[in-house]
């Protein structure tokens, strides 16, 4: 995946089809990184009344990618990105509320990015699910 999108605002970040299909949206930002929202709907339910773990992982993936793209975009060069792995910790059930997620780039080197992301619902401080990802980043010719 490559990009050079000149994100003047976090809202310039374009969500991929998977994110739109799950009802995700961009609502606001923290430190220039978009907050991704996902409404509770039939599309994302696992056991009755709760979000599916995979849907939460999906929200974290989209939030992590958004934060990484914006960090790479600041370098002003074209990069391709490949995910290497992810560790997801499920801390609380995702209830029937709006979910919010944001990514944070912990380290961005020449080849590797270490990114984390977290989800909360009604209370920003009460994290329901978090993940840490590694991505390979490659400068395009």
């Amino acid at each position, binding site marked *: *995946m*490559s990009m050079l999108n000149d994100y003047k605002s976090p*809202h310039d970040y374009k*969500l*991929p*089809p*998977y*994110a*739109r*299909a*799950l*009802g995700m*949206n*961009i609502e606001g930002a923290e430190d220039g990184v978009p907050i991704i929202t996902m*409404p*509770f*709907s*039939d*599309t*994302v*339910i*696992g*056991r*009755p*009344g*709760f*979000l*599916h*773990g*995979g*849907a939460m*992982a*999906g929200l*974290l*993936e*989209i939030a992590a*990618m958004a934060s990484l793209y914006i960090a790479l975009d600041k370098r002003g060069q074209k990069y391709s990105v*490949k*995910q*290497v*792995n*992810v*560790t*997801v*910790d*499920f801390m*609380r*059930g995702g*209830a*029937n509320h709006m979910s919010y997620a944001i990514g944070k780039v912990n380290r961005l080197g020449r080849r590797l990015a270490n990114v984390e992301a977290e989800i909360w619902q009604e209370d920003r401080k009460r994290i329901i699910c978090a993940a840490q990802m590694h991505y390979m980043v490659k400068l395009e010719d």
Partner: protein
Amino acid sequence: MSNEQQPPRASPRASPRPSWFPKDGKFNVEIIQKGFNSYGHTKFLGMDYVDSGDDWLELCLDWREDLVADEQSGVMASAAIISLLDNATSLAIFKKMEMFKPQATMDMRVDYLRASPKGARVFGRGECYKLTSKIAFMRGIAHNGDRDDPIAHVTGTFIQTSLSQFMAAGEK
């Protein structure tokens, strides 16, 4: 982003248990074949049952335009593979126990060995390799039809909960 393509809202009252959840709690592959993909996220993704053994179970998922996370390459969202492996490993635990017991995913680690090509069907094979009184340890792979050429490896744990905890929304 506008609010286009919002999915339908969830039914205001969730049913007390999944419709396929058997009354006697006994695990039965036929029940899985008939109903596990009849609602929610699993239905949206369109998973199907493939095969199972004593402590493993395999599901599959077809590539679809709306599951794409990278529009340039057409590569499916890696989280769709997490959903597939979450379900396959969870059902593998039921298969090993030969019954349905409420459980929640505690953690998962997925290593993506290669991208799943555009259009390719993805298989998710989950295995429960150790069961204690509260924790189920699982592992699995995702592949495109050849288990010796995996797309991803997963490991993780599930924790057993009571039915009331399992169903109680807004758990603290």
